[in-house]
């Protein structure tokens, strides 16, 4: 268990909400959180939609440390996310963060493959920028079912040396699954792989990297109750038993997860985005 004292239960101010492809990018002034956050961590935001109860977890998609601002990329899937993207600028948002364990930076300079599905690419974009700045070679693979569901990677050159986009229907970029693109790029075993996206995609990435003998970190996404480690709802089966993804994750070593016990059993479920 990582019990990080930098986390706070605080109130931020929504300063902008802009469309980003089919998603929305919400920018929130919350200096305590923005300053402490690292890629892979998330925040839990109180939503005031009727009937909802729990905070909604969203990965931090980037920060502007100087301004004390953090960005979220939100897919509208239900009442809570719809409420969030509908809020007016200046709305005060109660939130908790930065939460969980972020991605590990590689010790030595090297090649990094970042594999994302749908909005999962947003957090990797931030990770990529940090890796580039630290002198690593970065290739970002961004996949989705269709062109609309692709996360629009903006500052290509500052986030990765190479950006490859895939869509299942071929409506944009390479036709196929992002995991196919990953397979194509596994020339050697020395790359570090980072993945963020739906669980079936993560399972596939975990399988590919395991077979190729590569180190892989995945940011898992399980249903969360509390987001802070006390309810035991967000568990993922690992070689050491069920681990709480909100506090022992969301970033986990892919080789420690018992993918065959993830519900529904995955590794072959390749749908994403």
């Amino acid at each position: 268990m990582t019990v990080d004292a930098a986390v706070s239960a605080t109130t931020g101010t929504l300063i902008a909400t802009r469309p980003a492809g089919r998603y929305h990018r919400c920018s929130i002034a919350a200096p305590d959180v923005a300053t402490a956050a690292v890629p892979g961590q998330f925040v839990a935001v109180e939503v005031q939609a009727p009937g909802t109860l729990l905070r909604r977890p969203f990965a931090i998609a980037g920060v502007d440390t100087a301004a004390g601002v953090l960005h979220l990329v939100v897919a509208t899937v239900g009442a809570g996310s719809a409420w969030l993207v509908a809020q007016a600028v200046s709305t005060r948002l109660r939130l908790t963060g930065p939460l969980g364990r972020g991605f590990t930076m590689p010790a030595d300079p090297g090649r990094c493959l970042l594999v994302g599905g749908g909005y999962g690419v947003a957090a990797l974009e931030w990770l990529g920028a940090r890796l580039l700045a630290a002198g690593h070679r970065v290739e970002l693979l961004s996949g989705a079912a269709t062109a609309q569901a692709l996360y629009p990677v903006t500052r290509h050159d500052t986030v990765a040396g190479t950006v490859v986009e895939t869509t299942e229907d071929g409506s944009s970029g390479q036709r196929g699954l992002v995991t196919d693109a990953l397979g194509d790029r596994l020339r050697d075993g020395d790359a570090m792989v980072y993945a963020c996206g739906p669980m079936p995609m993560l399972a596939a990435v975990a399988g590919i990297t395991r077979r190729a003998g590569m180190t892989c970190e995945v940011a898992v996404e399980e249903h969360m109750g509390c987001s802070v480690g006390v309810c035991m709802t967000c568990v993922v089966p690992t070689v050491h038993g069920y681990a709480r993804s909100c506090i022992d994750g969301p970033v986990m070593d892919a080789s420690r997860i018992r993918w065959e016990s993830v519900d529904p059993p995955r590794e072959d479920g390749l749908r994403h985005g």
Partner: protein
Amino acid sequence: MGEVDLSVRLGPLRLRNPVVTASGCFASGREMARFFDLSTLGAVVTKSVTVEPCAGLPPPRMAETDSGMLNAIGLQNPGIDTWVERDLPWLVDQDVPVIASIAGKTADEYGLLAKRLRDVPGLAALEVNISCPNVEDRGIVFACRTGATAAAISAVAQVCDLPIFAKLTPDVADITEIAHAAVDAGATGVSLINTLLGMAIDVTTRRPKLAAGTGGLSGPAIRPVAIRAVHQVRHALGDVPIIGLGGACTCTDVLEFIMAGADAVAIGTATFADPMAIPAAVEGLTRWLRGQEERAIAQVRGTADTERTA
């Protein structure tokens, strides 16, 4: 104005304020200590612990429902031995009374757990969870029947001198009957209520939202049931110590429980929705009491008792 007194008696215990944690909603204590000082709490009630380590149920373990949530954790815990050695010492070192919750599959197991805990230094009391809905066989929910309730509670009472709180389920025709059975068998007081058995189905996948099928319903949705249970038992059992819980989120909710007859009030699910729910409620109590005639929160207990139509 003068200073106000938030302390309450809970049977033989004295708590610095009536707000405590709900079992299963506070993990080891360390997680929440990141947000506030645990001495803000009236007491910590720990996650139910079992004789053997327990992996719990497969995920998804949680589904949000209207103003509530279903959970099917299945008592994931490291087992009594590891818990006593690894988790408990840190907690009893904090400046807060610790009430340990135990769950057994048989009356004997309850006795075993109580024996293991009776001499642990620093424990304030036991909460005996005889009402967990996340068990395979509905028939073995002890708190559904007076006989089984009495068996589990006396197994504990026979081996252990700590104060005993019997945690009951509202899923019965008459909760006062079960409360009577628990007290007659040696319970010091009762904790009312555990979750209601519930289910939710995802109409897209046509599968239950919880891997386990059914789960326990908690949160604001169930508060009216909890308030009713507390009120009924307060009336039927006179002065019995009561920990009220089920959907308490705010200071107002805590007061509702106290006025219904609770001595202490546990906050569970609300902590998931807001990690600061408990400290905010405690602060609210102080402010509220300053505006009342009473100087002590203990005097507020049961004050909604007079018939409304009287």
